[in-house]
């Protein structure tokens, strides 16, 4: 366990003393009281965090009779995928009964363009802020960052009016614009900070060679900043996929994103509650961000840290 103390390189000054006796911290035992406490706590907490995921999966694989009789933690006696099929293709929201698949494809059609558009805008903008400052740019930037903290509820209705005026209210394109707007503060911050940290000489050399605004962006900045683009994609895919408020405000029932549809399916008051179908639908909705999360590993952490802590 933590016997890395043994392998600590000794500073030169202590080498002389080595002959006179042992030095350095006492080597710890694998099962010291400290380790039992440490790992014990971590494992208990980890189990707590995993429990809901486990219950979700287990419930979604049981039949309804088994759910009524057994307890939620027991593994399924008879595994059935029926609830998954039903959640995907047959579950009802209101009048249409074609399952979550409709919401899934709506979410895909919302997420993909939103991610591309928001990142395109924010990266160019961050690049302009980092390398091509103009008078007043910083003022707008500060407004943008402070604006990120304004509760969305304050701005949703004016946006409804704007979208209605340009004829996009209720359409997927309207929602894409909304996501691009609200993704802008955090992404611009992310890109601006990243581009600012790149060596200034690089930019100057390209200028001397005659490259312009777009040339430098496309041929130098873009290829050199792929990691930050990946971080931005992770941030946006999970954020937009998980959005509920904008989906419910700016789309109509036939264009509802998956989260809105899921909520309608599970919390619908009519009919018998089918908990296994509900849980299958819940996992299906959570699957995309979960896959992104588990595949991206450290980059996800970097993304949220970049998103959360400025700089």
């Amino acid at each position, binding site marked *: 366990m933590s016997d890395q103390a043994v392998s600590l390189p000794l500073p030169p000054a202590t080498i002389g003393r080595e002959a006179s006796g042992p030095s350095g911290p006492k080597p710890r035992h694998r099962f010291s009281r400290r380790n039992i406490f440490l790992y014990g706590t971590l494992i208990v907490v*980890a189990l707590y965090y995993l429990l*809901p995921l486990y219950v979700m999966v287990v419930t979604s694989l049981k039949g309804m009779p088994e759910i009524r009789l057994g307890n*939620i933690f027991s593994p399924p006696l008879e595994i059935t995928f029926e609830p998954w099929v039903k959640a995907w293709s047959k579950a009802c929201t209101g009048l249409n009964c074609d399952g979550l698949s409709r919401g899934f494809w709506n979410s895909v059609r919302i997420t993909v363009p939103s991610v591309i558009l928001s990142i395109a805008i924010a990266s*160019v903008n961050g690049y302009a802020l980092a390398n091509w400052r103009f008078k007043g740019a910083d003022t707008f*930037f500060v407004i943008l960052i402070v604006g990120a903290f304004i509760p969305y509820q304050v701005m949703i209705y004016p946006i409804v009016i704007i979208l209605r005026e340009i004829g996009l209210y209720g359409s997927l394109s309207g929602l894409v614009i909304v996501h691009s707007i609200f993704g802008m503060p955090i992404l611009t911050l992310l890109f601006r900070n990243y581009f600012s940290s790149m060596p200034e000489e690089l930019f100057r050399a390209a200028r001397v060679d005659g490259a312009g605004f777009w040339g430098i962006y496309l041929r130098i900045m873009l290829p050199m900043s792929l990691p930050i683009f990946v971080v931005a994609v992770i941030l946006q895919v999970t954020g937009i996929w998980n959005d*509920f408020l904008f989906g419910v405000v700016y789309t109509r029932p036939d264009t509802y994103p998956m989260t809105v549809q899921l909520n309608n399916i*599970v919390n619908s008051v009519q009919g018998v509650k089918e908990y296994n179908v509900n849980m299958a639908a819940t996992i299906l909705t959570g699957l995309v961000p979960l896959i992104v999360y588990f595949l991206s590993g450290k980059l996800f952490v970097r993304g949220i840290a970049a998103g*959360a802590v400025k700089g």
Partner: protein
Amino acid sequence: MSKSERPNQLFRNLNAKVASIPMILTALVVFVGGTAWTVLYSFTNSKLLPRLNFIGLDQYYRLWSTPRWLVSIENLLIYGVLSLVFSLVIGFILAALLDQKIRFEDTFRTIFLYPFALSFIVTGLVWQWLLNPDFGIQRVVRELGWESFSFNPLYDSSIVIYGISIAALWQGTGLIMCLMLAGLRGIDEDIWKAARVDGIPMWKTYLFIIIPMMRPVFITTLVIIASGIVKVYDLVVAQTSGGPGIASEVPAKYVYDYMFFAQNLGQGFAASTMMLLSVMIVIVPWAYLEFGGRKRV
């Protein structure tokens, strides 16, 4: 570069200005304009459609005499204090535990953080199921032999907000842990060595040396948690839909319902302006410290 070759200032650096148009529009039209618009219309008696028919502070009087709004505010306060205290304490303790040069650090971190990848809707629905009185935790504990065990937050209006807070903490603590861990990693190893040499016990080192050193991290985290608290909406919608009765209503839901269901826009605007005001109380001092004092941007 220092001398402007062209006489017209507007066209200097034109590409950068073009590239910033979306930012300028968002900042001015949506953030400043939209906010000003909502605040302005909160002084009107707009019902189904926004109308400039000023009635002074009437909407605010009505707001603060509506039981549902008062319940929402009370819930927000309880939820806010619980989120703030517990996510900071748990997040910090988990980060400190992970910082002990343990094995499987990545595994533990992955487990603690995965709920954060899930939406509030998913979180709310899972916890709705776990807290279901007939099938969930309550039944399991009763079946284990503790017959009188009662834990039914989602159907008990006096404690429903705690049931929501449990779900919120499950979802969000991982993020706080990550921020704290980044803060702990930023602390010089020599501090620890010095504290150890002086024989200061570990908990004292954390409490009196490390935490004060992490002040900036704590402030940023505080701002993040606080701005998240005010926004809480989807979690409540998914977990309880505001029920039982109006026991778990929150301000964000009040705003949405009045704007889009009750067709009482004025009330919605007044309520959202109150939300804005509460955020300003947290953000303005912070923004002043961050941007105002020294020119760092």
